[in-house]
């Protein structure tokens, strides 16, 4: 009792002294890990605690499960400091080891926490050995074949341990490794490595139940410089495209007709019904054109409501006022009086009449240009007496006041009037009004805007098919021209010239500039303006004397079709002012009235 108390006091004092001196018992050591490289031996490492300032010794002690016998570590050196190596004889598998480490120094000792270890589950093999990476060149391109050997210590041959391998590859500059699992084989082919680059390769292994080994030392391999030929892909692409092309071609071939139709729609060729090309080739143009003529055309239409109401004034008091052009057709038959030349009425056999009249008035005229056309039905007025003369085609000067008009051509939407070839009965119309703003001055500077009035009704005046006359209407048919005074006075003007602005310079007949060319008729050296179309065509009426058939409808006239002979170029038509209706000036100055035919 006294001894133990003395011992206690002494130890307490010793502690105090030792603490004052800075030394103490060792701290607790700690077992860090135990590992077996081949499942036959194993090693344990510990971490020493505080040594307390005094030299401390460590001892590892263990006992097996269900046994109380404590053994001490057989080998402290083989594995280095603070380690304990268990050799084959001391290693038992599938048995728990209870291991502790004891630290001892002069002042005391300490024991670590115990650790239970079953060697079968702490296997961590050594690294694989002899890692080689070789570039293998093949058709598809070079690749790297990495091969290695098992760690020397692992006994896989007897089946005691089974290892599986893993390798990783990267370029020097890469951050991430590319890992590949090689299974239990000892080689691996790495494809798709970039050419002309250096790669680093490492390998490690693992038993089926255990820990991965450390990575081997880096093995370097350099890929050669090659051009990757992905031939198979190109071959496939080529074959595929050829196949597609073949299919397309075959499809197009099968459907070539519809493709042609789609791409090149057929241009409708001109066709004239009844037109026989062979006849044309044979040269008999007359027969050819004959076939184009439609019998029974123009259709008989009651033109009553189409009649244009207009007044016709003759300065010959023998003339009668024709108010209704219904009589015109009859007038074709009658009125052979010379005054008919003045009126708008034509005589149905005006051809001879015209000729006659032309002859009459020919004396003194410069009639080189006369030609009597056979376009009988064009009712146009030509100037008289000197009627066979007229304007030079294209000449802006009127040497005389003779102006030829030619009949209007249909331009209304009325039924299309065909010209018969045979009918020779021109009907003349007179312009109901001529606006005459002329001053009594002698200056030929009378500009007049001649407008036509009431023309639309004229159409209705065509009564008899025998007498066809053309009539033209402008678009402005219904609108009276601005500034036209609705006076019904008729005055005759003669066109002096046409100035470049497409205006007819008219002067009243009382002008002393009037050509002293005699005329048989009072109205011979003037012409009535029938109408003005589109502001730059002046259609003048002319009496029946002439049947200069040119320039107007070539489609068919009252007379037979003959090449038009310009009798008198009547009006100069500015070419630039082509009427929209389609009056076309022929080279000789006559207006081609064919184009005024409404288009169907």
């Amino acid at each position, binding site marked *: 009792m006294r001894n133990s108390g003395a011992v206690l006091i002494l130890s307490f004092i010793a502690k105090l002294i030792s603490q004052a001196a800075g030394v103490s018992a060792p701290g607790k050591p700690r077992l860090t890990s135990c590992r077996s490289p081949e*499942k*036959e031996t194993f090693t344990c490492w510990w971490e020493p605690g505080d040594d307390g300032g005094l030299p401390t010794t460590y001892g590892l002690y263990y006992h097996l*499960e*269900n046994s109380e016998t404590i053994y001490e570590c057989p080998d402290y050196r083989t594995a280095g400091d603070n380690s304990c190596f268990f050799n*084959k004889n001391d*290693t*038992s*598998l*599938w*048995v*728990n080891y209870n291991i502790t480490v004891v630290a001892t120094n002069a002042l005391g000792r300490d024991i670590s*926490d*115990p*650790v*239970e270890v*079953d060697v*079968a589950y702490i296997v961590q093999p050594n690294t694989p050995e002899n890692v080689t990476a070789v570039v293998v060149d093949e058709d598809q391109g070079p690749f790297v074949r990495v091969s290695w050997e098992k760690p020397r210590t692992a*006994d*896989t*041959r*007897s*089946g*005691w341990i*089974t290892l599986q391998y893993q390798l990783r590859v990267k370029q020097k500059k890469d951050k991430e490794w590319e890992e590949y699992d090689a299974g*239990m084989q000892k080689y691996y082919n790495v494809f798709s490595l970039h050419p002309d680059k250096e790669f680093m390769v490492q390998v490690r292994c693992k038993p*089926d*139940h255990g820990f991965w080994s450390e990575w081997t030392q880096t093995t370097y391999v350099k890929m050669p410089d090659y051009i990757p030929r992905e031939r198979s892909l190109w071959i496939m692409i080529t074959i595929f495209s050829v196949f597609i092309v073949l299919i397309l071609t075959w499809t197009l071939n099968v459907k070539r007709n519809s493709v042609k139709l789609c791409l090149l729609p057929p241009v409708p060729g001109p066709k004239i019904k009844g037109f026989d090309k062979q006849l044309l080739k044979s040269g008999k143009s007359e027969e050819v054109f004959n076939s184009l003529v439609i019998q029974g055309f123009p259709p008989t239409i009651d033109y009553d409501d189409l009649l244009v109401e207009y007044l016709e004034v003759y300065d010959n008091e023998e003339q009668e006022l024709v108010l209704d052009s219904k009589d015109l057709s009859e007038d074709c038959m009658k009125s052979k009086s010379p005054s008919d030349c003045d009126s708008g009425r034509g005589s149905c056999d005006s051809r001879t009449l015209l000729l006659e009249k032309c002859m009459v008035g020919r004396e003194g005229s410069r009639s080189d240009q006369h030609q009597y056309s056979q376009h009988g039905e064009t009712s146009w007025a030509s100037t008289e007496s000197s009627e066979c003369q007229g304007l030079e085609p294209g000449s802006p000067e009127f040497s005389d006041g003779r102006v030829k008009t030619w009949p209007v051509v249909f331009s209304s939407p009325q039924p299309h009037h065909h010209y018969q070839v045979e009918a020779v009965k021109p009907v003349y119309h007179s312009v109901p009004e001529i606006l005459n703003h002329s001053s009594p001055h002698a200056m030929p500077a009378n500009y007049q805007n001649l407008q036509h009035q009431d023309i639309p009704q004229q159409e209705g005046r065509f009564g008899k098919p025998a007498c066809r006359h053309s009539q033209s209407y402008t678009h402005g048919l219904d609108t009276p021209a601005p500034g036209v005074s609705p006076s019904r006075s008729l005055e005759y003007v003669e066109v002096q010239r046409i100035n470049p602005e497409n205006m007819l310079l008219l002067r009243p007949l009382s002008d002393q500039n009037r050509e002293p060319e005699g005329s048989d008729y009072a109205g011979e050296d003037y012409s009535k303006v029938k109408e003005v179309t589109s502001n730059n065509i002046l259609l003048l009426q002319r009496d029946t004397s002439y049947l200069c058939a040119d320039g107007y409808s070539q489609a068919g006239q009252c007379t037979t079709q003959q090449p038009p002979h310009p009798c008198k170029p009547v009006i100069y038509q500015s070419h630039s002012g082509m009427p929209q209706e389609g009056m076309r000036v022929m080279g000789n100055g006559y207006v081609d009235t064919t184009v005024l035919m409404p288009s169907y």
Partner: protein
Amino acid sequence: LSLWAVAVLLVALLCLDPHSRVSSAPICTHGPSGCHVPSLADLFDRVIQHSARMHSLSNDLHSEFEQYFLPSKNSIGKIYRKCHTSSILTPNGKENAQKLAREELTEVILKLLMAWRDPLFQLHQSMAHQQDFNSFSSNKALEMGDMAHELRKGVEKVAEKMRVLGMLGNSVTGLSAAETMLPISDSGEAMSNYELLYCFRRDSNKVQNYLKILKCRIVPEHDC
């Protein structure tokens, strides 16, 4: 009449054509007995794969147990009862295992597998009844038990094959009379589920290892 004649002709042709006659084809078309017989190496591969699968299952179950039911690892308070198979002498090292003859090794394997037939069944039963386990774990236990059974059958076939081939002497004692070992510890208490799993994990590892040694000793061509 013509239609009838055509039909009769067709039928006759079909009947007369020897190739068109239907006959039962043999199921096995290779080998002397008509069926493909697996070689010893194939058998070994199969059983080794089987044992690997079984061991991984036991490993998983044990880890689950340790994780959820025994948070304190390596605690001093852990009490390890002896596994009921500890009475079976098993080599605990490579040399020891290699010193054993093939027949003895085979016998050890079979003994081990036999000893676990009933305990595994009990394990599954107790796991299924306890509500701590989810169905997944109890299914694993069931699968594990089935696998042990299959594996035993497979090893028996391997032994049979070896005997046929003359590799195995007749010293392999019949295991049919092997005592059924009950997993009763020394203290007489039944082992807990955790202990059973712990013991089975170890024993399945042993079985796998022994089979591999056996294979590389008998058919060393592949993977050895």
